[in-house]
């Protein structure tokens, strides 16, 4: 995928995050699309694009957010770096269980941070958000793999062992 396409996708997802996702909230919560995109790009072995999504997406969310400037940038970049490190050290292959587990755990950690900062904790909200994020991660994973298979003839089934 060309850089310009990645940039446009990040802008589109940021706009969906701030303007649309509140309508699709479950228990008053919705997952961070930029975070899911960064995770999925790591699953697809595209670290540079994942880091770009975290930094540029974080910048856009910071511009939209009433929180202190830099919160989304720092948190998304840090999570992306940590997940990338875990993948390079401990995980060698991608399968649906790993995609679900990494997305779910990352989303819970991220949500707990948000809950602590904003004094808003709901266990059901936390769990439902993690499940919501896993579903979206699979959708994104299929999308990125379809794009990859178009450009390099690598099929989704060959990657998703």
């Amino acid at each position, binding site marked *: 995928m060309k850089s310009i396409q990645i940039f446009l996708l990040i802008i589109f997802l940021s706009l969906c995050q701030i303007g*649309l996702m509140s309508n699709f*909230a479950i228990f008053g919560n*919705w997952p961070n699309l930029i975070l899911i995109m960064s995770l999925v790009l790591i699953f697809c072995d595209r670290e540079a694009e994942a880091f770009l999504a975290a*930094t540029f997406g974080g910048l856009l969310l910071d511009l939209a957010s*009433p929180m202190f400037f830099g919160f989304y940038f720092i948190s998304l970049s840090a999570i992306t770096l940590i997940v990338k490190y875990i993948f390079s050290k401990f995980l060698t292959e991608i399968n649906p269980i790993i995609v679900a587990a990494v997305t779910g755990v990352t989303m819970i950690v991220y949500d707990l941070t948000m809950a602590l900062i904003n004094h808003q904790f709901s266990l059901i909200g936390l769990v439902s958000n993690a499940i919501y994020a896993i579903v979206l991660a699979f959708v994104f994973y299929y999308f990125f793999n379809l794009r990859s298979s178009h450009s390099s003839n690598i099929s989704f089934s060959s990657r998703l062992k």
Partner: protein
Amino acid sequence: MKKYRASLIVLAIVAILFVSSFFGSINFAKNLFWKMARPVSLVLNGSIGRVPTFFKNIFYINQILKQNHDLVSENLNLQSQLAKTNEVSYENEILKKELQFANSQDKTNVLVPAAIIGRTSGYLKAVTIDKGEKDGLSKGQAVISQGFLVGLVNSVRVDNADVTLITDYNSLVPAILQDSRGTGLLRGGLEGLVVEDIPLNTTISKNEIVATSGLGGQVPPGLAIGKVDQTISKPGEIFQKITVLSPVDFSKLEVLFVVKK
């Protein structure tokens, strides 16, 4: 290194904006961002955003019919009350004229309608509206929906502003219980809407109206917040604490009104 060039450029931009945020100049960038994002946000909200509501409405059709029936009877009841109130108001005006009562101050508030153009996260009890300094908004002004207080203007830019909802833990609004006249501070948080610091000698009754007290000056007095639900303070505490039920669904806010004094 070449692979990460775009990320490094973004990093440099963030560093510049981060430093400028300490001097307040970040508002210019935020205003510009929202100015560009506003049309897209409104279109997304007005099109794809309506889909879940449509399906929810079908799913809850029985509940909606019952609610509609209740609202029609409540509306009729309120209409009769309004007729009586209008009569009293008219009588009051006549008596004021008779007594040559000076109407020293204009107590009417100006309402500025504003559309919600953004919400970044469900954890942030804040929304961004499409009205700003240009429309006369300033920090601390009350924001209402369906006649009930829903938030306060937090930061204002030229064309848009951030509103902190009253369900946020950091929002504090001076409130008064209309029957018992007990005063306290309204804040959001894990327990929902809570009024704290009510004196112990106040006798609180369930379903009593909670409104803004007007203390502090920015928020006008008498704006309805909700009804008393229950007392949650423990016997040994030196102040009383109550939970408040607001009829407003804070997750479905669409159009808000900023109250300009």
